[in-house]
């Protein structure tokens, strides 16, 4: 599944969808394929802050645990409880039902450092 056009991407396989000053973060299709069956998800609470380049959560598959990184600074305003309850949704629908957190953007210029869909697709193909 190629990366949707309306987002930006990280080299650690997260996507960012920006609407106004709110950024929604999720994992890419490449990430869920790489992980395999996802069994557990750990996310910050609303009110917590996240920092660019720092892990904000953990995703576990049957065979591995991996950090999930934030590409931006900001405050968490919501998290996807249904993905926490049924993390397999990330395997099934990484770009739609399986968003992870929504963040109030502190510095929108940080988005300029991220990959566009074409660049991410190329990067993921090589990985």
């Amino acid at each position, binding site marked *: 599944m190629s990366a949707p056009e309306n987002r930006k991407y990280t080299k*650690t396989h997260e996507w960012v969808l920006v609407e106004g000053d709110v950024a929604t973060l999720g994992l890419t299709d490449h990430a869920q394929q790489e992980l*395999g069956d996802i069994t557990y998800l750990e996310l910050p609470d609303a009110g917590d802050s996240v920092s660019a380049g720092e892990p904000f959560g953990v*995703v576990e598959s*049957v*065979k591995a645990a*991996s950090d999930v990184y934030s590409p931006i600074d900001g405050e968490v305003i919501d998290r996807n409880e249904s993905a926490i309850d049924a993390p397999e949704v990330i395997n099934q629908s990484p770009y739609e039902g399986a968003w992870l957190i929504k963040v109030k953007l502190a510095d929108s210029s940080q988005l300029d450092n991220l990959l566009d869909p074409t660049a991410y697709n190329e990067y993921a193909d090589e990985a």
Partner: protein
Amino acid sequence: MCRRPDSVCLRNPVRRVGPIGDERERELGEDNDAPLKRTAMYQRHKDLGARLIPFAGWEMPVQYEGIITEHRSVRTEAGLFDLGHMGQIEITGPDALAFLQYSTTNDLSGLKPGEAKYTLLSNEHGGVIDDLIVYRNPEGEDGYTVVMNASNAPRDVAWWQEVRARRDDLDVTLNDISPNTGMIAIQGPNAEAITQSLTSTPLGQIAYFTWQNGEIAGVSTKIARTGYTGEDGFEFYAPNESIDAIWTALMDAGKDSGLVPVGLGARDTLRLEARMPLYGQELGDDISPYEAGLGWAVNLDKGDFIGREHMAAVKAEGAKRRAVGFKLTGRGGAPRQHYPVQVDGEVVGEVTSGAMSPTLQENIGLALIKRSAAGVGKPLQIEVRGKLVDAVQVKTPFYKRPS
């Protein structure tokens, strides 16, 4: 060193686990750049779309369709495994039995032709170099065939050569047949029916832990009723050049019986549910079989063997550590190898294996802990990335197939 396909092999289990995709290297746990070996089934795995990973120096399928679905297929229908990475050595000659009795822990003297037994290759300190299945060769064939873990096979062979040099009173021939031997396994409730459709050998006559010569779809093979999943099933040993023909015939015969190819990922969760030990996790050079719960595979009365004195002392004093099964009662992710285990704020040991059990839908694990902390029903806390998660010790195996 962690070589398993399904674990993170955390060097530092506290919080930082690394980015996605990193687990290939972490699960590998091998730093050398030696080219990976491939089994005779390699192209078949590629054609099936398997995800291949480095494992014990081999390029092996960790999954085809997905670990959970493959796991469930083996529990409810049947699965087919490539085990071509495992090692096999033939030990023959007039003193083959004496040599095996001296170098391993179990009593093999009662094995009749075609019978097999689980035993441990012991070191001089009462630890374990490898765990093994020793098959006495079928009627009319001299000696024994021993199956070794892929990760240990080279050092097992080197060790046996050293033992043979030391015991030049024993007339024995060692023949490492690993490079030419293919091995596959069919496991699950439908395994016998699928296999029976391809052979005139009455499989009902092959008892658990025995093997026979036979033919599958006209191809000569050894047929063993053994496995590593907790299900009924067979393992097939045949020359590399004929193993793919057996695999293909089984896949064809099993396509209406739910037979699917299964990778090393599900092999690990299957064996964990059945509480079968994995070398490098439940077993190691510095873990006594009595600590690992494998005292039943040690016979102190059969005569002298390497490490016997140390094992006898551990048995007499009581093992200081115990391998226990547990399940998480709190929420916090799956337990994994090397996670610390606590009781009342004190570290009492560590997790040796753990996973989200696909059959039980619970987080289960094995841990090696201080004896005083061990006991079914007693609580533990598992440190998962810096957070303590409640657990309770439970009876094992976690899963036993319906009889």
